[in-house]
């Protein structure tokens, strides 16, 4: 019997090395090696930004966590770490369940390919097998509402049509853990309504949602837990009804 859907993050620290335009140049690097001691000591290695410091959290199936915090507080880095793209420098991340990062709708989308080809490609990237994609093709096509346009290249679509397609494919995966950077709002009013319903059902089906947003109303609407981040430090995971209290308290003791 496989374990239930869950996320466990313990003592997570993520540092982002910043390779400036200069340090990408081989000449600078070689010069630094050649000069060695004097100049080398001061400038060796690249600058590092500690994006997340000692973060702990536990989520279980049914948890819908809202991440709030100012720009640069580490929300996106946390989402990327949860998606498996960024590795922890310290601590551990353990996720049971199929992860669907909806951080960027345009992921794996090729504008010169047709709508159908894009559905296949994006589905493969999301971890579906060719057979799975073919089996769900009708459902996905119907959901886009693009009909005959699916046989045409994506670049001939309007921005809204492209967004419809990207959204349909990105949300076609049977995911257990859904990671979102801002709530996805695409297309015209009609489509927004369908998209909204789809996201809700996805959230219900998915065991866990982690949503980073600046929109507190949205968080109140969709989430039952909330976590506030500030300068890479996170508050404990809190019940949504204590949101006001969470906002009132300073996170860092001496801040």
């Amino acid at each position, binding site marked *: *019997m*496989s*374990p*239930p*859907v869950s996320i466990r993050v313990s003592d997570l*620290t993520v540092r*982002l*090395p*910043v*390779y400036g335009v200069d340090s*990408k*140049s*081989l*000449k600078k*690097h070689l010069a630094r090696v050649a000069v060695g001691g004097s100049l080398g000591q001061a400038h060796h290695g690249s600058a590092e930004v500690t994006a997340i410091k000692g973060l702990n959290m536990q989520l279980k*199936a049914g948890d819908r966590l809202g991440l709030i915090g100012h720009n640069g507080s580490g929300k996106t880095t946390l989402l*990327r*770490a949860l*998606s*498996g*793209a*960024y*590795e*922890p*420098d*310290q*601590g*551990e*991340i*353990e*996720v*049971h*369940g*199929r*992860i669907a*990062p909806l*951080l*960027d709708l*345009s*992921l*794996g989308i*090729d504008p*010169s*390919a047709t709508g159908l*080809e894009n559905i*296949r*490609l994006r589905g*493969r*990237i999301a971890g579906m*097998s*060719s057979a799975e994609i073919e089996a769900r093709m009708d459902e996905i096509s119907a959901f886009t509402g693009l009909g005959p346009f699916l046989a045409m*290249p994506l670049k001939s679509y309007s921005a809204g049509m492209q967004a419809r397609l990207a959204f349909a494919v990105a949300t076609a995966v049977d995911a*257990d853990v859904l990671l979102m950077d801002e709530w996805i709002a695409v297309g015209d009013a009609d489509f927004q309504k369908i998209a909204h319903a789809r996201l809700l059902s996805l959230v219900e089906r998915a*065991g866990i949602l982690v949503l980073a947003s600046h929109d507190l109303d949205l968080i109140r609407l969709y989430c039952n837990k909330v976590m506030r981040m500030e300068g890479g430090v996170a508050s404990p995971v809190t019940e949504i009804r204590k949101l006001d209290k969470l906002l009132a308290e300073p996170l860092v003791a001496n801040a």
Partner: protein
Amino acid sequence: MQTAEHMLRTGRRGTGHEFTLAVADLKASGARLGLSWSLAWHDVVSRYRGSILGPLWITLSMAFMVLGIGFLYSELQHISLTETLPFVALGIVFWGVISLVIIEGCDTFVLASSMLSQTSLPIFTFVWRTVLRNIVVLGHHVVIIVAVLIYFGFWRKMNLPLAVLGLALTLANISWVSLATAITSARFRDIPQIVTSVMQFSMFMTPVFWQPSSRSGLMHLVLTFNPFFHMLDAIRSPLLGQAPDPMSYAILAVMAVVGWAGTFATFVLTRRNIVHYL
């Protein structure tokens, strides 16, 4: 709600641990080789999108190049076409694979940056994508090789298994070079320029078009220390019914082992940071 999928990411715990994680990445890419294949296939198809002949252009443009250079060198070197054309055809086709896998290696991670920065796809998936893409292209060139070998009668005296061994050893070698250029190009943006220049220079230093007439003096040096000569020799000579230098296979095998060891060690040390290079 139950699930079989599991992801565990841990902090730095020394080089031994990093090695285990690098091997895990390699294994995971093997398990999802189908994805690399889909991406590679998509790359080839999109390159020829909108053209009437489609990927058939790969075959056609190569055929013209082979014919042109074949005739030219047959005139220049006063050697019969029977001798030049098959030599040149095989030379250009296999040189194409070697140089493109290495040069396109430079873009492997740069082009995959959006996927690397928000999914847990294995890093090796994109290395195999580059290699497989060029194997698909080679598949289109096989038509030319078969045509030439049949037309000039080489199919009767060729040693196919030995040529396949040569091709396998060559692929083993260019794959690690491709990984090496991928990592270094992501970190240092001068590397693609250097790689392109080196490959251009090597094309003239390697008997791709021209036949090595003597192996003395400088020529001997060029041929012995040129790894690309050994790759071409190991594939081409058996197809032309000539005896290849047995040393070529030994050199390629040793180079593959040493090269993979060195490159994989680099991968072990840089794996975590590759996504941050981009």
